[in-house]
């Protein structure tokens, strides 16, 4: 049972008959300067990690669910100096994902069997033993740019009644 995913209230039948139930992980504020983007999508845990040394460089890191193939390179496809399998960027990505989504949700998505003693992101990496995979920088980077374009979508005064299904604070 993924404790982060759903907070059971009442019986199962009641839960299935509710229109408003928390289905997303509780969002916590996190620092974005190191890992501005992390997501579990397209069958991979993937994201963008800022370079520690060059402010205008970012690394695109990803681990595929199931096969645990990892890759890390700059957004221009230059290889990561850390080897791109268990480099600092992959570690930062996994740590941030655990911070954002919770350890169990990330493990379930990546299809990693955790032991009870596993309590942090590093344990996930040790269980996975990532192996080198194909470069995915272009695809992931375009997801990041698409993500940023939300900040350019104009505000609206048109009522959006469907947002009653999405109250702020659910699952907090």
């Amino acid at each position, binding site marked *: 049972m993924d404790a982060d995913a759903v907070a059971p209230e009442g019986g199962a039948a009641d839960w299935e008959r509710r229109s408003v139930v928390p289905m997303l992980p509780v969002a916590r504020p996190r620092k974005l*300067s190191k890992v501005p983007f992390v997501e579990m999508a397209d069958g991979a845990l993937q994201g963008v990690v800022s370079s520690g040394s060059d402010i205008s460089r970012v690394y695109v890191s990803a681990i595929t669910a199931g096969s645990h193939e990892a890759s890390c390179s700059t957004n221009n496809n230059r290889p990561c100096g850390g080897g791109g399998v268990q480099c600092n960027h992959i570690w930062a990505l996994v740590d941030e994902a655990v911070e954002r989504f919770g350890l169990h949700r990330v493990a379930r998505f990546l299809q990693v069997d955790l032991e009870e003693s596993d309590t942090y992101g590093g344990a996930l990496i040790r269980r996975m033993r990532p192996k080198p995979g194909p470069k995915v920088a272009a695809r992931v980077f375009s997801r990041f740019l698409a993500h940023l374009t939300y900040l350019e979508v104009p*505000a609206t005064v048109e009522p959006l009644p469907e947002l009653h*299904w999405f109250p702020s604070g659910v699952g907090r």
Partner: protein
Amino acid sequence: MRGVQLAELTGTAPSGVEAALDVVAGFDGALLQGLGRLDATGTSALAGLAGAVAATPLGPRVAEAVEKITAGSIADDSLALLAGARSALLGAVHDALLAQLDAARGRERRPWTPPAGGAPEGSAGAAAPGGEGPLAGARSWLTEVAITGWRGVDADSVAAAAQVVSGLLAAPGRRRLAVLLDGLVAELRAGSPLVTLDRVPARRWGDLWSRAVLLARPGDGAPSGGNPAGTNDGATDGGDAVPAGPGGSGGETVSGRLLVLGVDVHEHPTAVQAQVHAILEPTGGAPSRLVRTSVAAAKVDTVLGPTMWQLLGDHPVLLGALAHGVGLEVTDLVLRPGGDLIWRDDRARPAEPADPFAVARVQLGDVLADGAPPLDRHPAGIAEPVLLEGYTASRDSDGGVTFDVDGTAIGATIDRLPTCGPLTPELVAASSACIGLLRWDAGRWLVQPLAVQVATKRKTTVAQTGDWALGADGPRASKAAKATDAVSVLRERAGRLLRR
């Protein structure tokens, strides 16, 4: 609202509600299973849906659609009829619940009528060139989902939906559908792989799917004439040609004094909406009206808490009214049938201070309310402002809060306290008066607090969801604001990376 009035609500559900919801649950089960792989239970659930609307104008067409689908021929049009039938049932439930509420508190509610002198049908579509492409994409995705069932939605399908959403966001007049689908897709993504998800929120996803199907119908931007959801059980309106919804402009032009009751905040990873509930005192002495005005913005998941108000910063007069507790003078705003006041910050200016509790005490009792537009009739959309006073609040064993109002108990939705405001479960549990929204979900009435009064020995303090609309103060606020300013960090990153 008094305890004896509340007791009328919490006592028994209106007749037929449970039966209607059983039919909906049957359909939701079939949708979970996948309409392309129905077993006997699923087939009989669809037949049940057709049976439930048999006596309405929808009846014959839904029956025909069910026949086609159970025979394995699943097309957009047939699915729209099923979604329409499901929405009609929930619309009837909505009407019955609201009638019960209005009877309990003696409220007058004007039935919804098509806007007089509104834009001709089709105008919104005409104003949305190229809007049909993304709509077709949305329809085919929704059809595919219905065929495979929720657990059949895989990473490729979720990726396809993301493409559909970005097309809709770029198309004018499709914001409702875009925001709805984006919220649903975020949940599908978070639940991946769905094939092994513990349990599926069948009612919730059924609601979102059905609404999306109706909003994705071809034609004008509004779900309009011939929209199945416009036809309910015939008890409250028999009409079936009803323009409504997005782009369905029209309505009356109003001016007057706007007195805020409170603000309800909605959010999912890529959208935020502040919906202000208020009383409009029209210039010229016409009866006061209960209205809502909504401002919304796109966001990303890392923008949360009080930072969200920054995204709504184009409306400083409205946000100022929330933060400072002042009334507003508004001039020539459009009031849609249904009670949506379309906000224009340049047509509003601050007036004298207005205490929401005083406003609610004096005016909320007999203010004129409007019936919801046909498509919006759904129990999840019920959000009726209410004032509760003189109750005893207590903490439940599971962390919830219950108000005992003159001996009648009603639960408070402490999971609906927005992250961008100062209300906490502790404050709600310590309160003795509350302005809230009456909500209904899965057979229970609940109150969602928007403002609470907490009396201590020395003084009475008030906390409201909109207190931080112009920025946060106090220890809890500064803690929340301490998280890096997500908007500026992302813009900085975008600026550097997009230049390359």
